[in-house]
């Protein structure tokens, strides 16, 4: 390795860096960076506000849903759905939207496409109901556990003479 050549390149790089530093300094960027660097240790506690954390956790969950959905199935289904809807819906139709009378409902119910869609809706309803049930069980268990834990903690606090707000 030619160290002399490397030193020249280093010198060139340093000169460019110095020129850049002057520009940043004149434009006040260095000053701004210096001020902002003071904020970095504080940033954690500001970002750790319960409100921000809750927003973060909810956004993360929404993103998780998008992560779980199979893009092949989702895009094929959505594309076909949009195609079908656009076939069925026209500006003329929107001016006089169809009404679902009892007779028409019965007619629709005989349509295999409507039957498939209804079956899917019932599958969703079944899954939704099951998830409500599971969540209720989970929250019940958690509350039971917390109550036991809190009873022990209250006992401990009473022993140490620490007041408890009821």
């Amino acid at each position, binding site marked *: 390795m030619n160290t002399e050549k490397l030193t020249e390149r280093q010198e060139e790089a340093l000169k460019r860096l110095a020129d850049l530093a002057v520009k940043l300094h004149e434009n006040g960027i260095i000053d701004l960076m210096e001020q902002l660097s003071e904020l970095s240790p504080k940033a*954690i506690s500001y970002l750790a506000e*319960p409100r921000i954390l*809750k927003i973060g956790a909810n956004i993360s969950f929404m993103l998780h849903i998008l992560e779980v959905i199979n893009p092949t199935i989702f895009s094929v289904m959505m594309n076909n759905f949009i195609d079908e809807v656009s076939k069925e819906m026209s500006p003329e139709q929107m001016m006089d939207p169809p009404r679902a009378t009892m007779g028409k409902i019965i007619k629709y119910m005989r349509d295999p496409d409507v039957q498939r869609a209804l079956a899917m809706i019932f599958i969703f309803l079944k899954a939704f109901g099951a998830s409500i049930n599971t969540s209720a069980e989970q929250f019940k268990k*958690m509350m039971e556990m917390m109550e036991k834990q809190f009873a022990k903690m209250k006992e401990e606090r009473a022993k*140490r003479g*620490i007041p*408890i707000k009821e």
Partner: protein
Amino acid sequence: MSAKVLILGGGSGGLVTANSLHHIFKNKSVKPEITLIDKNQYHEFMPSYPWVALGYRDPDEIRRPLSLLEKKGIRYVNAVIKSINPNKREVETTEGVFEYDFLVVSLGAELNPDAIEHYKEEAHHPWSMKGALNLRRALKDFKGGHILIGVQGMYYRCPPAPFEIAGQLDFMLRAKGIRDNTDITIFHLTPGPLSNMGPAISTVIAEILNNKGVKFVGNFEFERISPQEKKVYAKDGRSLPYDLLIMPPAHKPNSVVANSPLSNGKDFPVVDPETFRHIKYSNVFIIGDVVNPAVNLPPAGVVAHFQAEFVANQIAVEVIGGYVGESFTPVAMCIMDFGDDAVLPMCEFTKVYKDLSGPPTCGVLGRGKEIRLVKEAFEAMWFANYLTK
């Protein structure tokens, strides 16, 4: 004469207090004398202990000398604390007696490996640097069998750590090609993995453990270790076999604090949970694992961190006469690295802290192996901010 602030302990609570005070007073006309005392020469980044056990980090990569604080004008004294005398406003150490106007006690909990019979001969743990290195040696020789990970109580540092270690071990053993002849089991007091944090976190951790083939045994109230049978027994008679046992040692309240007037003969000192000031000695602030179990906060570095900023703010209020700084919010986050997966859970303990009126509000801020990068970035930022070279 400038106010003397004495900080006991160079863990996360002590380190953040010292740095926050330095930051607050850097450009002020009034400056307190800040002294930090610790028996150790290094500050160790405890969340990375499992990485040391797994060989992903070496000790020098996760520690920096506390003497670096001197660059910021913070005096560092390497000494063992012998006693605290709040009546005289003095702390006695192996390097002499130190007087203070404000005292911040952040000495942490003590590990007590002697509390459980056969623990020292049978169990490994990455809850200290020495423990992490011992576990690394044991893992190097491990050829397969039963790995048992569990806890002996609820008072141990970093509640998610046992789950994280299980995930990392699964990853490592698969890389080593001996996962098929190894089973990994976790036992815990809670019915589900981290179920005391609620279903939002518990279901995610349970799913990860399930994907990795890690078995979870809940409601397991530890009773004893049987070295002859190589089994751990629960109080209800259940037993679990082990070839490699990983358990945090029993933790106990800090003995210097417990033997001082601050604790008044009890295990933990009594503080005002709104301010972390001692109930009798208002110029003494107590934060971190040395007090948190008594104020319903989890024993974790992140809680000590936020307490430290809040306490530095209160000291500033007294020294300057008024200051607008950090408030305290009882929240905790941690990055759980499972090797090929990672989770960033968060919990807000407002309802638990102070009046035990309800469960914590918890959620997952992110999941995926890329979350490990957040942990690595946080580790780098921690040292860059608090022990700047």
